[in-house]
């Protein structure tokens, strides 16, 4: 069972619809027990960093998600949900993130010819040939964001070029982030979600 963490953010239902379409068992929940019992977690997110962290805090989910990550549970952060996995966000002031991955979230630089938000289909280039790097290499996915992640090169699985190299997929062991929306990126996006399910199954297999 995948639990999609439900904290009143925009695209939660679309992530659920994509999982339903793929026949992957899932539920929406904000209950700590269910989150800790799930085989894998998806942290969706649309909107602003500060508000999203406040919403997680309201539901007392920050230590729960941190604990799940520490336990080795596979976690996929999508868009803002990926950004929240990092240490610090600089959107509307400085906000502490979940701190599960090392790095910070900064604005996409303003530059002529590069409108912000970065909105639309952009191509991924694999930096690491793991499961996700292989699927998304040279494939276009749908992005909508104004901020991007800065993290050590070893955590970056794929990047996309938008005046700067934007990390589009990050991974450190059981924790994965996608800056784009796999649930809105057609066939390749669905393949990415299916791969996350396989990561979870491998994880369960290795635990048993």
């Amino acid at each position, binding site marked *: 069972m995948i639990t999609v963490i439900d904290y009143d953010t925009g695209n939660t239902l679309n992530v659920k*619809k994509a999982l*339903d*379409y793929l026949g992957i068992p899932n539920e929406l929940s904000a209950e700590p027990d269910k989150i800790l019992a799930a085989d894998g977690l998806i942290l969706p997110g*649309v*909107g602003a960093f500060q508000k999203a962290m406040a919403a997680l805090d309201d539901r007392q989910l920050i230590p729960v998600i941190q604990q799940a990550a520490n336990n080795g549970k596979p976690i996929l952060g999508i868009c803002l949900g990926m950004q929240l996995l990092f240490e610090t966000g600089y959107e509307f002031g400085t906000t502490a993130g979940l701190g599960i991955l090392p790095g910070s979230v900064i604005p996409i630089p303003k530059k002529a010819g590069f*409108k912000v938000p970065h*909105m639309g289909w952009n191509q991924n280039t694999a930096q690491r040939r793991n499961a996700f790097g292989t699927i998304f290499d040279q494939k276009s996915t749908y992005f909508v964001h104004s901020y991007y992640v800065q993290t050590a090169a070893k955590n970056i699985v794929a990047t996309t070029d938008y005046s700067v190299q934007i990390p589009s997929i990050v991974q450190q062991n059981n924790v994965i982030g996608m800056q784009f929306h796999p649930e809105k990126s057609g066939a390749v996006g669905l393949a990415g979600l299916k791969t996350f399910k396989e990561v979870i199954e491998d994880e369960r297999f290795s635990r048993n």
Partner: protein
Amino acid sequence: MLAKRIIPCLDVDHGRVKKGVNFVNLTDVGDPVAIAQAYEQQGADELVFLDITATNEKRKAFTDTIAAVASQVFMPLTVGGGINALEDMQALLKAGADKIALNSAAVHNPDLIRQGAEKFGQQCIVCAIDVRYQPEKDRYQVVINGGRKPTDLDALDWAQTAVSAGAGELLVTSMDCDGTKKGFDLKLYQALTAVVDVPIVASGGCGQISDFTELFKETTVDAGLAASVFHFGTLTIPQVKAELKQNEVPIRE
């Protein structure tokens, strides 16, 4: 490189697609889900659904249509047509829409843009603007109510007002070009891209493949929208993209 987007537009009336979509192998030519799937397979980058139902129970039917499409088609969906309240926006986003297009209601009440952007984020709010050129004043005039009612607004001014209110994208239709198949109004889009820095979707006038190439070569708009040329199969999206690629316009393959 960010790809230039090619967007088919579908008019929906009581849950059925109007304007006689004419795809081969489509048994039910008015089924929004089947049509959306066909366009997804062709490689459309986004779909726009406009609610043209003119009755009171309209919103429910439209929301159901979007929910049905969003459970089968996984690409960005923009919805519009008569949306004038936050509750409508919320219901449509919940149904699976990604962006809400506001048109006449935003002209009557620009604060609606601000409210929507504040609640759902600027990336969710598209300001749809229908314009007509006024030669005697040498300006573009905003027209509302489906192109039937002229206003005093200058389109370039209104575009800037809408963006500062929080619109994250503009969908601008040239009423002069719409239906003519003589190409997009390049001058209009050159003028618009000079005054606002959000993504712009150009609409109206597309009749042949070279119209898209010209649009992306001569202006910095982000997307081209068309309806009948795609619905009637005059052009297919793969054809348009092949031609754009040959002309070094970045597209999603």
